[in-house]
């Protein structure tokens, strides 16, 4: 099948989604990230790989946190980083997304890190760059509900770090999967890496249909869903989900789907708990879990920088 993120040699030239990435490409990214972990631990946390290259952070949707991790990663690769706070300003001026891109091409960009509220926006940009014959790489930093591939990869790095092998794991993803780009990327990554059992736990209002087609087992009950899991991935519950008809209240959500030490005890004794951050303590996760021995939430952040360094250096070289 045609895959717009791979070039004619099958090499990764954009990172748009985990879906469709061959297993060896994912493993290569994780292996490379392992080498970058060592760079971040040095006195001089910098390698000259992308010296002279320009990385543009295009955040059409605001996210200081994600933007910062990409910025750190790019700077540790010695790239020049340009943060463009596009937000609504250029669209308010009537400029289309592709107008903006054409403008930035003229500034000799080498790599675009794109965050956009619409699913598929990075595909549109990558296809446009091909059409206008620009050798600029695109890394998706989150598009709508669709994908957040670097988060998915850093979750895989974290799981591999603590569990070594994917082939005998039971992984549960808990919460608002319907609106979650992280969940979609995790699901594709886990199934591609050969995790035999991926579970989704949440109320029916927060689960998309057809999850079985993605190889996911659906649970509406935390006690059943968490039983004997090796890995628990918690998702952030956006505040706006609690004002509509999806959920009655944060309190009721927490009672049924919040991760408490008691519920976590149903998972394996050495289970790890991931969360993409920022956490809503007392909504999807109890503080005792968030700060407890099973949580690997802060290591995720550290791994995230190495994974983003790996992704940027691999696509920029292809």
């Amino acid at each position: 099948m045609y895959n717009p993120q791979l070039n004619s040699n099958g090499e990764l030239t954009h990172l748009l989604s985990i879906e469709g990435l061959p297993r060896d490409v994912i493993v290569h990214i994780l292996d490379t990230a392992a080498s970058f972990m060592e760079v971040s631990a040095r006195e001089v946390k910098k390698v000259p790989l992308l010296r002279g290259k320009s990385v543009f952070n295009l955040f059409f949707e605001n996210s200081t946190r994600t933007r910062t991790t990409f910025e750190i990663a790019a700077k540790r690769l010695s790239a020049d980083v340009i943060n463009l706070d596009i937000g609504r300003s250029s669209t308010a001026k009537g400029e289309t997304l592709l107008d903006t891109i054409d403008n930035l091409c003229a500034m000799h960009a080498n790599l675009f890190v794109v965050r956009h509220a619409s699913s598929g926006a990075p595909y549109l940009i990558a296809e446009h760059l091909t059409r206008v014959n620009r050798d600029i790489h695109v890394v998706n930093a989150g598009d709508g509900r669709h994908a957040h591939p670097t988060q998915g990869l850093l979750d895989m790095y974290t799981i591999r770090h603590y569990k070594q092998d994917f082939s005998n794991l039971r992984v549960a993803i808990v919460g608002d999967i319907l609106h979650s780009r992280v969940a979609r990327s995790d699901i594709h990554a886990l199934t591609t890496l050969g995790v035999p059992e991926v579970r989704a736990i949440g109320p029916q209002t927060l689960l998309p249909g057809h999850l079985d087609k993605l190889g996911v087992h659906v649970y509406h009950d935390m006690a059943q869903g968490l039983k004997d899991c090796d890995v628990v991935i918690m998702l952030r519950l956006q505040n706006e989900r609690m004002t509509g008809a999806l959920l009655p209240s944060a309190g009721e959500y927490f009672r049924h789907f919040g991760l408490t030490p008691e519920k976590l005890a149903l998972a394996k004794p050495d289970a790890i708990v991931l969360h993409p951050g920022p956490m809503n303590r007392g909504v999807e996760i109890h503080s005792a879990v968030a700060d407890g021995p099973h949580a690997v939430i802060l290591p995720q952040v550290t791994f995230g920088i190495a994974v983003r360094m790996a992704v940027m250096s691999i696509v920029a070289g292809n």
Partner: protein
Amino acid sequence: MPHLPNPLPDAEAQCRQLADRIHPELAKNPALVGIHSGGAWIAERLKELLGLSEDIGLIDVSFYRDDFAEKGLHPQVRPTAIPFDVEGRHLILVDDVLYTGRTTRAALNELFDYGRPASVQLAVLADRGGRELPVAAQYCIWNVELAEGENLTLAQADDGRLAWRLEHV
């Protein structure tokens, strides 16, 4: 065109010669840094032969290469591991073959990101000429000329023994 000796010289014997040449340097308490992968094997061998107790440093220069723009990232990158403080140390950088000098340049750059060593010497088993940068090895066992399309690499057998291999590219 000078002919290469057939069979190729014994790399293990060359390692012993190299250890003998380096031996006087031990007075300075040098640390060994091997360049991945051939240089790392030789450095490991030198450590045994010289009876050093300190672990060697390992360097993968993939992140420092100057041909990234043409070739992209190397498909297999190993973590660099320098288990000692570089600052003020006498270092011996170890590689298998010295050729253009670009790998040495990259390794020096990487080393300096760990600190300012007191000195750096270069030790190689083979020097095939063809330098593109002003780099020279303090210790070299075998000066060799290769024909067009030939490439010399060091291989490690399953039993750990090192041996030269001539490749035709």
